[in-house]
């Protein structure tokens, strides 16, 4: 029997619900899920004046990009879980390759490339639409089986098809 999550549009709606709309900070940033499949997630952050770090240039602060990368890497982990497991970011490295262009939306693309019993490994890039011209690169690891309740997204790895 095919899972409802085998449909890409339903999958995006489902992840939008769980990884942005019900996470207060992601909702405050207005994170939009634009693609999700097994081992991969992509999110968009729209430019807003409130997110600017340098008032002279209008360039986004590092913080919103950090939150975007953390969220996107975390979402890619969820697509890989085959049993319910709460998880949490263990560490996150961000390289700021070049400043984001003021006014432009930032797209993050994260890959979860390895899951072990206790740790999931991810990497991500952020760009303005051309993945070959990155704004930032990230590497994040996530601890699996941390304390807390298991939520619906942490049970769906097997339902998400490539």
């Amino acid at each position, binding site marked *: 029997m095919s899972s409802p999550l085998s449909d890409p549009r339903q999958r995006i709606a489902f992840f939008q619900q769980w990884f942005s709309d019900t996470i207060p900070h992601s909702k405050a940033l207005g994170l939009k899920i634009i693609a999700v499949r097994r081992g991969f997630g992509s999110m968009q952050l729209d430019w807003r004046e409130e997110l600017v770090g340098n008032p002279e240039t209008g360039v986004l602060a590092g913080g919103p990009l950090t939150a975007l990368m953390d969220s996107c890497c975390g979402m890619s982990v969820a697509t890989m879980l085959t049993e319910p497991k709460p998880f949490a970011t263990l*560490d996150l*490295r961000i390289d700021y390759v070049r400043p984001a262009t003021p006014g432009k939306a930032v797209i993050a693309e994260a890959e979860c490339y390895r899951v072990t019993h206790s740790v999931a490994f991810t990497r991500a890039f952020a760009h303005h639409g051309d993945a070959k011209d990155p704004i930032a690169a990230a590497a994040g690891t996530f601890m699996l089986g941390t304390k807390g309740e298991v939520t619906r997204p942490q049970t769906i790895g097997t339902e998400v098809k490539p």
Partner: protein
Amino acid sequence: MSSLANPLMARLAEVRKSGDVAKIAEAIPYARWMRIAPENGTGELLTRMRYHDELVGNTFLPAIHGGTLGAMLEMAAIFHLLWETDTETVPKIVNITVDYLRSARPVDVIACAKVTKQGRRMVNVYAEAWQDDRAKPVATANAHFLIKSDDAPPSL
């Protein structure tokens, strides 16, 4: 370009006269939105992120979003560089590595920063964030900033 042409550096010059460090944050839209500001009431420059509901990343625990902890550690490093060093430009972040040590509860987060190594163009900064108990940090970070470079892109 004169460094005072930047509103943030102009603000810093004013703040140095008045001594009210919290005003540095007022020139940064993101710091205002996140309610992140420096304070030096204890004689040590600390950075505080005031708790508000939009910081939450996990409503079940509940816990503050990891991205906001990375963001406030980065701001703590920037405020430290602006206030404690004689940088004449807004420090440009090159990279940051954040270690998450404990889940952060829905209360204020405080951070301190220190320069691990200062070079002519590059500084390495360490920052640490805690909540009620300074001996139990919730997250730490190491970051590199360009402090004097014409070849670097303007970012904060």
